[in-house]
């Protein structure tokens, strides 16, 4: 069905079709609309989901973990400080190999108190063992949420998955949305290591130095396998529903001499910047990084790279630029822009490219 929707409601629509047995959630701006909408579905009996309103995000994730351990499909949504409050439980969800799906509406971290888009909240959870995908449109928020359940629950993965969308600029914008008949695209969830609730017993989870690292390696092995599973899932999604996705969304990159790498909504804005630059005779392209964990293999050889980081690691640099440098050995021009919802237009992005100084870092709006 073709309609228009906010990013938040698109996520909720996908969750409804994935039919999680348990949703445990705590509200936080700008995510609240997601869990409100799911609560509406539950109240109207449109889905048979146990909805657990909890007193904190830590408990929301703990409740999802409890339900997931019993082998059922679970979902929650959060943002910013809510995500940080879950931190300990995020490690637990991945370590216990629970394919929980969560939407994180990217928002800056206080203080100063700010409710607008930034990616630092998600990046501060990058080492938890969660898969992380970042979307750029309302349609993609819906599609990626559907695929997240399938990818997380694949027996080659069995890891929790976080769908990230920009606060307000995507969570609250209205765009067209085509919903699909999911059919058997998301098969029933079966967790082989689920506890048997009818046969209760005690477990000793202590894992000594001789074994612990094996479990860690097993997470990494699944992360590597996840690349294949993601590619397969996205290919099947394309053949079933007609919309193609990949680890990156590339725009006019084939012959590009300079490529802008960015994430989320800025990656769409960057495509407009590329058109402007092309009209000026600059061979520019845009690469919107969709998957951050597992981090994809990027084809950037022989090109100048401008990375727009909507995040920062203090005392080091932009997280995306640092990742690209580490994985590809390519030096970038790193622009820090869009923090806390800072307005960044396609003209600004075009100017980043025109004034690029490879190897340097520039904070947009700051004059030293």
């Amino acid at each position: 069905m073709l309609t228009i929707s906010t990013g938040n409601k698109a996520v909720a629509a996908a969750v409804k079709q994935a039919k999680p047995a348990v949703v445990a959630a705590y509200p936080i701006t700008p995510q609240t609309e997601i869990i409100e909408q799911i609560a509406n579905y539950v109240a109207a009996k449109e889905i048979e989901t146990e909805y657990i309103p909890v007193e904190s995000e830590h408990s929301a994730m703990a409740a999802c973990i409890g339900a997931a351990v019993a082998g059922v499909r679970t979902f929650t949504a959060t943002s910013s400080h809510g995500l940080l409050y879950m931190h300990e439980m995020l490690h637990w969800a991945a370590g216990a190999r629970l394919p929980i799906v969560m939407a994180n509406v990217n928002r800056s971290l206080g203080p100063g108190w700010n409710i607008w888009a930034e990616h630092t909240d998600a990046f501060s959870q990058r080492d938890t063992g969660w898969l992380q995908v970042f979307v750029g449109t309302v349609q993609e928020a819906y599609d990626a949420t559907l695929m997240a359940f399938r990818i997380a629950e694949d027996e080659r993965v069995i890891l929790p998955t976080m769908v990230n969308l920009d606060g307000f600029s995507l969570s609250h914008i209205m765009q067209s949305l085509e919903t699909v008949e999911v059919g058997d695209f998301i098969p029933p969830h079966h967790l082989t290591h689920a506890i048997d609730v009818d046969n209760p017993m005690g477990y000793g989870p202590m894992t000594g130095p001789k074994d612990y690292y094996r479990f860690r390696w097993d997470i990494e092995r699944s992360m590597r396998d996840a690349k294949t599973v993601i590619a397969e899932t996205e290919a099947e999604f394309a053949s079933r529903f007609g919309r193609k996705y990949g680890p990156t969304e590339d725009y006019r990159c084939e012959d590009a001499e300079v490529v802008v790498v960015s994430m989320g909504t800025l990656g769409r804005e960057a495509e407009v910047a590329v058109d402007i630059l092309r009209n000026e005779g600059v061979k520019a392209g845009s690469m919107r990084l969709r998957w951050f964990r597992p981090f994809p293999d990027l084809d950037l050889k022989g090109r100048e790279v401008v990375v727009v980081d909507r995040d920062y690691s203090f005392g080091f640099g932009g997280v995306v630029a640092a990742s690209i440098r580490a994985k590809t050995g390519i030096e970038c021009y790193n622009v820090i822009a869009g923090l806390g919802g800072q307005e960044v237009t396609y003209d600004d992005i075009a100017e980043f490219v025109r004034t690029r100084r490879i190897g340097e870092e520039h904070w947009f709006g700051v004059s030293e």
Partner: protein
Amino acid sequence: MYEIRIHSRGGQGGVTAARLLALAAFRDGKYATACPFYGAERRGAPVVSFVRIDDAPIKVYSQIRGPDMVVVLDASVMDTVDVLQGLKPGGTVFVNSEKPHAFPGFAAYNVDLTGIALAENLAIAGTPIVNTPFLGAAAKIGLVSFESAKQAIREMFQDERNVKVAEAAYREMIL
């Protein structure tokens, strides 16, 4: 791409006006986005929201700086806000007002949306609803078809009075 900036006061339904307009444009077969500018908004404070309409998919998320049209749902906002800021030369201004306002160099329209809403007793907590009658005015100006305007209203509201006020605005506005 046609870009519209809507000025209103917090609680007046400006965001819903943007969403209704985008939905109507979408039902016309266009691409449309509606985005509120969320700031330190509170009831009664001047707020803005944005609508973009195009024949091609819209990739721009940043705020509208050079709109083709400005919509003023509360004329008193003009006392403190320069609503014409960035408006393209020859652009369009619509004001919810009984009396016409002069905007030299721009095409100006007005109709009394508040009066139309009050005539139908259409108000929430004492605040007249001006966004659904605005859709009638938007259709008259030609932003969207009148059929799609009415369809959008029916998709978002149960109360048929919302369609009646849109019809009244469509009828009463003079081009």
